[in-house]
């Protein structure tokens, strides 16, 4: 089974089809940690997307449950049928979608006249889980990827214009998490990790192998 770890997730503005990114910023969520808070305009409506980044999928699951503690309606219930996230909860009518995917928690909601936001949530989830091809007009550069014997993954990634880049790590039949700021592979046997660097104008891909 694939495992994902997302590091430094951010929006570039093309993640939600048909919507324009109005604003994206980090706010201090106190015990929840930093929250990437964004507002999107879709037609006459507004869609708000908040993203919390944990150190592991378990972290994200816990954070999702904490977020749901602040939802008043008993009708926001877990859904198994929406093919969304590792765990997903949806408000009736689809005006609020709360899901965990890998180490991320995503809160997608109608912030004014947007009606259902399920499609936006699905698009976002697909963007996070996609296995992209490298390329683009000005992709990031991965100059180094190392994996120590203890599974610690280290890399140097830069954007040609020094813009922010987020990183997606993917492996098969092993678990990924973050420990003391570093990505770590927990595997019963040697496993490779695909490192995907996502920049504003392109994607770069490299592979990390144990002892590399």
């Amino acid at each position, binding site marked *: 089974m694939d495992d994902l770890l997302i590091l430094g997730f951010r929006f570039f503005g093309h993640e939600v089809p048909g919507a324009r990114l109005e604003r994206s910023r980090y706010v*201090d969520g106190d015990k929840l*940690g930093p929250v990437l808070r964004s507002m999107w305009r879709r037609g006459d409506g507004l869609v708000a997307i908040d993203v919390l980044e944990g150190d592991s999928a378990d972290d994200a699951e816990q954070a999702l449950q904490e977020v749901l503690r602040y939802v008043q309606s008993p009708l926001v219930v877990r859904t198994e049928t929406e093919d969304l996230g590792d765990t997903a909860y949806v408000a009736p009518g689809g005006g609020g979608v709360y899901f965990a995917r890998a180490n991320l928690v995503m809160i997608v*909601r109608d912030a004014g006249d947007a009606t259902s936001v399920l499609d936006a949530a699905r698009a976002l989830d697909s963007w996070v889980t996609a296995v992209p091809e490298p390329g683009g007009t000005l992709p990031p550069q991965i100059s180094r990827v190392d994996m120590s014997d203890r599974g610690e993954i280290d890399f140097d990634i830069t954007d040609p214009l020094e813009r922010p880049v987020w990183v997606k790590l993917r492996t098969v039949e092993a678990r990924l998490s973050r420990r003391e700021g570093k990505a770590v592979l927990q595997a019963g046997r040697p496993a490779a990790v695909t490192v995907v660097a996502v920049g504003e104008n392109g994607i770069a891909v490299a592979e990390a192998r144990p002892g590399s």
Partner: protein
Amino acid sequence: MSVQLEAVAFNHDTSAATGDALTIRRNAIQDVTVPEWRRGLSVTPEDSPAAYAKAAVAGNTLTIKVQLSRTDPSLSTIEVRALDADAHPSPGPGGCLGFIVWLLRLLVRALVGNPLGEVAARSITFPASGTTGLESFTLTGVRLDRVGVGVRTTRWRWQYRQASSDAWTDFATTSHRIYVLLDVPTAPWVQTPGSSQVPWTDALDRACIWASLATNRNEAAEKVTRAVYDLGPSVVEYDCPGGGSSNYSLGSFDCTAFVERLNGGVGNGRYVNCSDCATITSTFANVLGCDLWQSRMESGFALNEILAIGSATWQTACGWATFNYHEVAWLGGCTQNDPVWDACLQVDGDADPTTAPHTPMLPVNLVFGAIGAGLYRDRLCTPAGRPNCNPAPATRTRRLVV
């Protein structure tokens, strides 16, 4: 002009607020620089803000600090003072029109006029450099004890003279935005210089207007609660689409976004839930010196029909039969014996809150109450829901402002 006013400092002692102004900032990212008024930089009252806590300064002498310079090297020692520019205005028209102007001035002064009085005259000796340090001046005729919460404007006419027999000469006019608070703001607000939790003028601008003229904590909290509820439906409304999620108070209070929304921007959108309303109410009340908390009642309780913020329809919230939880601004230990202020909804205030007809009542300073006491709990919950609706004082918090 032979003398120039260089700077005026209101918050010149950041370790106390008993004889000078409070430590404030503009918002999450902008400080208020001390001295608050600087020559060439401060033009409007908003450029020179200062806040005073009525309870903290009561009975004390207030001081400001002032820096002066001379352009005439022959000036050595002068006497300096500042008059209330609105109490000593230039002569107006006479007759009937004059009386109306006088009356209007009186009204304006009573509502938003200068609470700081005048700057008492004192002697200043210029050093060789020609520019003084920040020299202490005493305020006289201070009216902070006679005014309620508010945003006021102080305008001073600065004057000097060389000899006591000389006539006073005007050399500067300054204007200052003065926030009058009941007491030193309580948490999450702090008085630690440099902290992002120092009271924001962005919050004071709203809170002081919402609670205008309030003279005690309960009155201020009530006015803030009513003002927040009245933001619906034009500015905010209850989050039915999202299932009642926290859009401004998740983890911390996104006061920046909320102020943006108040100012006509997008903010975090139009929807709020109970935690948002409790956080907004308590944070804006506490910046005035109230002492409220955000605290929950739990869990899974059936509701009477209510009027949710922004709604004109009596119904259980969005038609849901129950709330998973509810959160309000709460006083003291946040127990059933303590009063709540709930800007999220109106309950039925008549003898039977379980059935129509309904009499709208915004819960302000209403004790949570035991089951059957006819207080907040009975008005919010159905008889069957009341046993499940219990104060959760362990959840008591005051979210950080960001």
